[in-house]
């Protein structure tokens, strides 16, 4: 299992566009908010957290959109289905590597962005924590969408329609968490919800993706 994890990481790091594009996209979208809304520091302090979350959400879709594409084209997916390693475990490994390479850089960058927008340290902490707990859910649900639409034409559009409604609760809890920290309220409520959802999704979604892939390859 560790061997597969290492090889997956290697693959993702060698395809630099996999982690470079979402990261660049994330940064560019965030710089659009002050330009489009208002450069007023007080306004940005209040609202930029939501902007960062929306940017993270789209960046995460961008990163998973081509997830099983190469595997399918190269015939590796069939070998995964026939292999002796349990498929859900294999998918969990793949998703972990995917998250580490595409989402973690973005989370590491967030405190820096927080400083740029004059956020207080407690808000930066809440924002980073919400991303740390929320982005694994985005990766999992996004990958599920990809697995369900694998091999369809116009996959991208359908993916958005399929997935965005499903991740709205994540956005709501995450932004609530940040807003509560802004007015010095306890963040444990939304934090617990987000953490619970994260554990639930990480536990079950690999099985669902495995089933979706099996059905998808059965043609």
């Amino acid at each position, binding site marked *: *299992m560790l*061997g*597969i994890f290492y*090889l997956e990481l*290697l*693959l993702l790091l*060698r*395809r630099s566009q996999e982690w470079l594009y979402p990261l660049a996209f994330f940064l560019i979208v965030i710089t659009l908010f002050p330009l489009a809304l208002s450069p007023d520091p007080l306004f940005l302090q209040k609202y930029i957290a939501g902007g960062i979350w929306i940017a993270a959400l789209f960046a995460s879709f961008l990163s998973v959109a081509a997830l099983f594409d*190469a595997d399918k*084209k*190269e*015939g*590796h997916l*069939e*070998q*995964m*289905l*026939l*292999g*002796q*390693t*349990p*498929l859900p475990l*294999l998918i969990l490994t793949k998703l972990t590597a995917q998250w580490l390479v595409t989402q973690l850089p973005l989370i590491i960058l967030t405190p820096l962005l927080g400083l740029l927008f004059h956020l207080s340290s407690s808000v930066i902490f809440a924002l980073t924590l919400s991303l740390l707990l929320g982005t694994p859910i985005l990766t999992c649900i996004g990958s599920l969408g990809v697995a369900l639409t694998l091999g369809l034409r116009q996959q991208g559009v359908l993916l958005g329609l399929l997935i965005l409604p499903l991740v709205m609760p994540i956005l709501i809890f995450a932004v609530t968490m940040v807003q509560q920290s802004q007015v010095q309220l306890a963040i444990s409520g939304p934090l617990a919800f987000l953490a619970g959802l994260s554990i639930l999704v990480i536990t079950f979604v690999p099985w669902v993706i495995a089933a979706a892939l099996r059905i998808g*390859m*059965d*043609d």
Partner: protein
Amino acid sequence: MDVLEVTHLSCIRQHKTLFTDLNFTLNAGDILLIEGENGSGKSSLLRLLTGLSTPQCGSIFWRRQSIQQLGTRYGQDLHYLSHQNGLKSELTVKENLQLTAELHANALTAFEHTLALLQLNAYQNYFVHQLSAGQKRRLALAKLILFPKTLWILDEPLTSLDTATQQVFLSQLEAHRKKGGIAIISSHHPFLLNAHTLRLGSC
């Protein structure tokens, strides 16, 4: 007892019947050569036999158990080589072998000998996208030798191989047969002696 039994198998693709009521039994040491024109359903038949696709009707039994029931346990005995080679192009030759070994829950040992046999030893640290089509095919065939399994299902294994490698493959196939292995091969080349032949005609 290693037996593959196919009963009343039918395949319908896009409202076109490719074959109906196909029956055959393969015992240890049997090789089945599947012939037929393009689009006659050779690859579809092979996919059905791997269990990746579910047949519209008919059943496939491996060691007297339906492969649908066997599920992933069927994979323990099965090597499947499709048109795509199942290689990751951003990994090197050696890393690809490691990945295959991991997927088959096997340790990668003594692979140099196999690579030498397939004339790939000098390319160990080359990325797969740097290899030629024939070299990729050879690397895909390496798993047959490295991780011995009873049942081989191979879709056009000789595509883009040179004559020397074709001979290597045929001698490996013969060794596989002698050990009591079963092979199902689709091919346009009538190259095999002592093989059963199944001709898929257009219906």
